[in-house]
């Protein structure tokens, strides 16, 4: 068993405006890309962010070996309940997922 972080180049999360979060998995190779697309379902991401799959936009971009997820921000940027102004801190959640 390894983690996403162990097989990919980088996982990045960022605000896409104050109301959306976007997560980019830079796989780095077609082999890693294949492993990620097989193992990381939209459902797994939904569970991780305590939301439903229909809230998540998914882009499998083979040409870049990138898998991208976008979802309404778990907390609106800068609101009283927000803990991370720039949204970069959500990436480790995805990076630490297990890969079979």
């Amino acid at each position, binding site marked *: 068993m390894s983690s996403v972080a162990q097989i990919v180049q980088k996982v990045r999360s*960022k*605000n*896409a*405006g*104050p*109301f*959306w979060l*976007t997560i*980019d998995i*830079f796989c780095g190779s077609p082999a890693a890309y294949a492993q990620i697309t097989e193992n990381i379902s939209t459902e797994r991401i939904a569970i*991780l*962010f*305590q939301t439903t799959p229909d809230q998540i*936009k998914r*882009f499998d*971009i083979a*040409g*870049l070996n*990138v898998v*991208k997820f*976008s979802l*309404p*921000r*778990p907390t*609106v*940027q*800068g*609101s*009283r309940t927000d*803990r*991370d*102004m*720039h949204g970069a*801190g*959500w990436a480790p*959640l995805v990076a*630490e997922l297990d890969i079979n």
Partner: protein
Amino acid sequence: MGTRILIPSGALGLGYNKTALDRAVAAKPDLIAIDGGSTDSGPSYLGRGVSKYATESTKIEWQGLIEARATAGCPLVIGTAGTCGTDSTVDWLYDITLKILSDLGLSAKIARLYSEQDTAIIAQTPLFPLSAAPYIDSDTVKSCTHIVALAGAEQIQTALKTGAEIIIAGRTTDTAIIAALPLQNGNHAGAAWHGAKIGECGALCATNPQSGVILVDFDDTGFTVTPMADGAKASPHTVSAHMLYENSDPFILFEPGGHLDVTQATYTAINDVAVRVMGSKWEPSDTYTVKLEGARITGYQTILMAILRDAHYVENVQIWCDDIIEKLAVKVADRMELDPTTWHAELRIIGQNSNLGALEQRTSDATELGVLAILTAPDQATANTLGKMMNPYLLHHPLTQEEEQPTFAFPFSPAEIDRGAAYEFVLHHVMELANPMDAFRLVVTDV
């Protein structure tokens, strides 16, 4: 006719490579465009109408660009001046500009494009929610301290047509300041917007992203991006991957008056450093809409911090925090005449889950933990009073009545730190305009 746009960096305030800038100026750009802001630093800047960058830093970087403009003999355009692009930040940068021109003994024609909106008028205007927009009503809109509309290419073109040499624009889309001139020159519309999106963060679309300076050349069929610093290289991968950055959709980008579709775009290396892009499409919309951003005060805050180093307390920190929150509520109800729905107390455990909260998956054996107390109230005096009531718990609260009274580490005296007003973003909506300039104002001066 081709159009050459020089982009010195992703934002004024981030710095740029001077050698690369000189090289780009020598390549005779038709326009220098730089972004001055974004919502990324949070709602406080828009809420207060201020810049996040120091006046001193901004003056030095802006002066370098004013000198570059004078040498190149082309217009200099800044979008979203002063982080948030309110009228106050446009005027802030205008004042800095006057000082620079006076110091240098230069004159210039300056256009100021104002994007701020009257909250009372917006409260009466039909607004259309974008995806994941919060619920709003006219009271929400009226409670905003500042509302700005994002100008597109049309408003920048109106400013360019005045013959202004320096354009200081309030809130604009990141891309509008770059796309405006190529569109005005009749270059390929899809390429104009796509090249603008690729270029808006400067050299972030290339290797050595901190070098900043790039040139984007637009023509009738596509665009070419060339980073200017030594060692900086654009490749089809770095350029196409930039469409991922801070975009919820990497193929579609909505702008005033239509949307960009890059699904069919092709990226080709034309040498070791430059990339050619073709096949991007611009789809005009039936109506002309501009996006709005608004911020309002959500309360006033006082914060405190305590450090727990005692292993017994580190181990039982959540119980300790929950108990404090409960006891504070009882004390406040007992001693203050305060509606419990108007104030809020929170303890965030730094070293455990302060970044992710309930989403955190990992646990760890920490040596020490920080406990950040955040008190939110309708006014600062009340928030401070709540902080003073929180203080004794953070200092001495025991896990059980039986144990000896503990004392925890406070890094500061006084422990309470007044944070002032806390703001929140409340608009993620668009409004329709019959004419693109309807919600914007242009002031032109010769100085």
